[in-house]
């Protein structure tokens, strides 16, 4: 259980990154609706969609992990494969965590471009739509956006050894990001009432993100803390793969 608390906290700290990246979406989503209750409802639906995507990723990755290594006793090939998977997941997490922690200078662009335009184009179609299902759809797609934080916890889910554990890892992370994103959305609704009506959802989105950017120093700290959490969790996962079985880390 303590692992999930750790992951939840990492999610809370990591939302410093989420707000920068996705906070603008949350603001814009609430902006078109009349009244406080409608804003809250849209935010809840959006975040439910987002967290569901995370849970889904976690469960699928966890399930794939178990399929890959199978279930085996001590000393079997399956056991070795499971430990190898945990070790590589842990390494990947440490790698991502260190990126958040420090600033290495060598840069290499990610080779991920396939389908990117389509996702961003799709999101653009949803942002201004008045339908109640639009924030849900937006949340689902938002949850599938590539993000190093998600990669890190998906890696942990893959190494977790079971479908349920995978789901819980990603679920705990998603819930950790929930409060900050909800606040960002509520702030969006609040700012909208204070300001004069903006011409277009995208323009509004840009102006609202300004407030999130203002807390840059604070957010930078948050991201560092999240990086530290990920490194610790990565080391635990790594240890589960590397250390002998008797080290009693399995329950962590």
């Amino acid at each position, binding site marked *: 259980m303590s692992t999930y608390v750790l992951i939840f906290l990492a999610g809370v700290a990591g939302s410093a990154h989420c707000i920068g*990246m996705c906070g603008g979406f949350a603001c814009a989503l609430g902006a078109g609706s009349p009244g406080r209750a409608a804003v809250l409802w849209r935010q809840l639906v959006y975040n439910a969609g987002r967290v569901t*995507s995370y849970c*889904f990723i976690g469960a699928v990755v966890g399930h794939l992990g178990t399929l890959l290594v199978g279930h085996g006793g001590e000393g079997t090939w399956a056991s070795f494969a499971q430990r190898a998977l945990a070790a590589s997941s842990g390494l990947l997490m440490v790698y991502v965590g260190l990126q*958040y922690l420090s600033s290495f*200078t060598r840069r290499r662009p990610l080779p991920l471009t396939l389908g990117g*335009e389509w996702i*961003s184009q*799709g999101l653009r179609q949803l942002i201004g*739509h008045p339908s109640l299902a639009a924030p849900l759809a937006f949340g689902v797609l938002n949850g599938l956006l590539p993000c190093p934080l998600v990669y890190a916890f998906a890696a942990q889910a893959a190494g977790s050894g079971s479908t*349920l554990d995978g789901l819980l890892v990603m679920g705990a992370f998603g819930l950790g990001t929930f409060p900050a994103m909800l606040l960002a959305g509520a702030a969006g609704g609040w700012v909208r009432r204070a300001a004069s009506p903006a011409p277009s959802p995208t323009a509004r989105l840009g102006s609202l993100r300004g407030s999130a950017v203002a807390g840059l120093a604070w957010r930078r700290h948050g991201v560092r803390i999240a990086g530290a959490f990920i490194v610790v969790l990565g080391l635990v996962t790594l240890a589960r793969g590397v250390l002998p079985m008797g080290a009693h880390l399995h329950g962590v």
Partner: protein
Amino acid sequence: MTPSCAHCGLPAGRLAQRRETDGVERWFCCYGCCLAFQFEHGSHEEPEAASLLIRVGAGGFLAMNIMLFSLLLYAGAFAGNDAVPTGLVHWILLGLATALVAVLAGPFLSGARQALGEGRLGADTLVCIGALAAYGYSAYGVVSGSAAVYFDTAAMVLVLFTVGRYLEAQGRVRAMRSVAPMLAGDRAQVTVVTADGEVVRPVAAVRPGDAIRVRPGERVAVDGEVLAGRSQCDESILTGQPAPCPKRPGDWVHAGSLNGTGLLLVRASVAGCDTRWVRLGRLVREALSRKSPLGEAMDRAASRFVPGVLLLALATAGFWASRADLGEALLTGLSVLVVACPCSLGLAAPLASALGIGQAAQRGILVRGSSVLERLADLRCVAFDKTGTLTAGRLRVVALDTDAVGPAAALRRVCRVASGSEHPLARAVVAYARQQGAEAAPAEEVRALPGAGVEGLIDGERCVIGSAALVGAVDPTPLAEAWATAVPHGATAVYVAWNGRVHGRFVLADELRPGAGEAVAQLRSAGLRTLLLSGDGPQAVAPLAATLGMDDWSAALSPEDKVHRLRQESAVRGPVAMVGDGLNDGPVLAAAAVGIAFGDATDLARESADVIVPAGRLDLLPWVLALAQRVHRSVRANLLWAFGYNAVALALAAAGLLQPVTAAALMALSSAIVVARSLRANGADVAPGAAASGYLPRSQRIDDARLLHD
């Protein structure tokens, strides 16, 4: 120092990537931020596609929940847990799946119903039967307390097919995007300058005489005259030529052209809904909406294919039911249904054609419908009209021979005597003389001699300009002795005589259009037979055909003769295209497999043409044929590919080697691949005469299409 992310503001760090967006280099800390940035800074568009995406998202939410519970069931997470009995999970799944079917099955059901109304079975029918069978069987299982539930299958089939639909819709949207500026004519907003100041109005509200302000970089939305300001306009949307045209007060601007860096004030000459831009948009839209014969053939084939697939699925289910349990048999039958879905077959042809029509339109070429593209690709022979098509239909002096008096004397006299004449030969000669710098006051007693020439008095001395017969009466010396070279075939000679002697000879010929020789040579090297059909006499036609290297020619043809000759040719060689100016050869253009006219696409006189190329742009002709062939190849390759893919997948499914979910994923992938292949095959574009005419890359010319910048 590490740069910070252009989107979220955090230090870009190690995963940083550099992207050029809007021509500015930016750093992003992760790919997600890069996407989010593009999303935020693009324009909001295509609201009609949004509802489909909402379905995908909401359906995805439900389907992910179904998958979560199903995965946990498979993994045995609920086993031995008394608090959450399996039966309860099944009921939850039933609830989720019912909601999912309600959200996602609608479009497929209405598609199936529509097809059924037309007396056929479509791809939608297969999806409906497959998904509803899985859902119904599982629902029955839940109610009767059986353990066999396949809600995850029903959910994933529906979601994946909806995703496939969405990808197809996006592909169409992208294909249409290249022609978007052309279609935007009637939706444009203009700034009208009134006595009370500037008002923004829709273009339809513009009346002739209104003053319109056009800002730098804005698209001009009216046809009219520049009142004030200087700028340069890119008129490529209308002419296909991207070279900027300078505009100053008094010049005409055309709706659809893109204003350069200056601010212009324009007086509209026609109503806003009647500009060439708007009319062109209507024609392009019409062309895009015409269904191609190949597309229709595919639809017919699919409708015959579907009942067969249903039978095969039933047979497969029956076969497996006799060997394994009913649930397994049902899943196998379902896989067959799903994998045989001919979605991508119906997608390849329209997508590639729309792209082709769009690309042609960007160069000012109007192709009237996808069937025209198909016929263009099948051509065996191209027949040309002469005057106005290969030649400019305008006489020009090609040579001036004089005796010892020298050209200057002859030119001066021509200028003085012939400048008042309206005869085409006289005008061509005078134009040439002025071009050479001769300028003088008109002669006295100038008199036109109908059918022969013109005469006048210069310093008391009679000067005659005209035909050989006319000057023969002045100077009896045989002309053949006076000039060393004969007048070439197809050319006309005009003589100048004064003082009782012939002193000069002008040789005039119809001017060959630039690029005519190259166009004919390119067509021939592409394996097409070229033919010259003209109403002019053989002495004019034969040398031209020889100069251009035509395979064959026919002269002195009436319009009916041309139609007859064309029919003969197509009976022997196969489909023949006729290239004309579209004004007086309507019947021939209509009779040809493809009628190609030069000129302004919005001119009603060119109604009978299938393809309209900007006036004088013979160089575009080989390009448009190559385009048609490229589209043709891409469509064939895609159809072949889709058929092969379906056939292999079908065999695997019937053998029971494919899960329905995998099958649905394969089909969505097939749609995605066909879309991507079509977009890429027709996007990799070779501009016509790129070096010579300085075509810009497509992305630079169609600013409206630049939504995503990498």
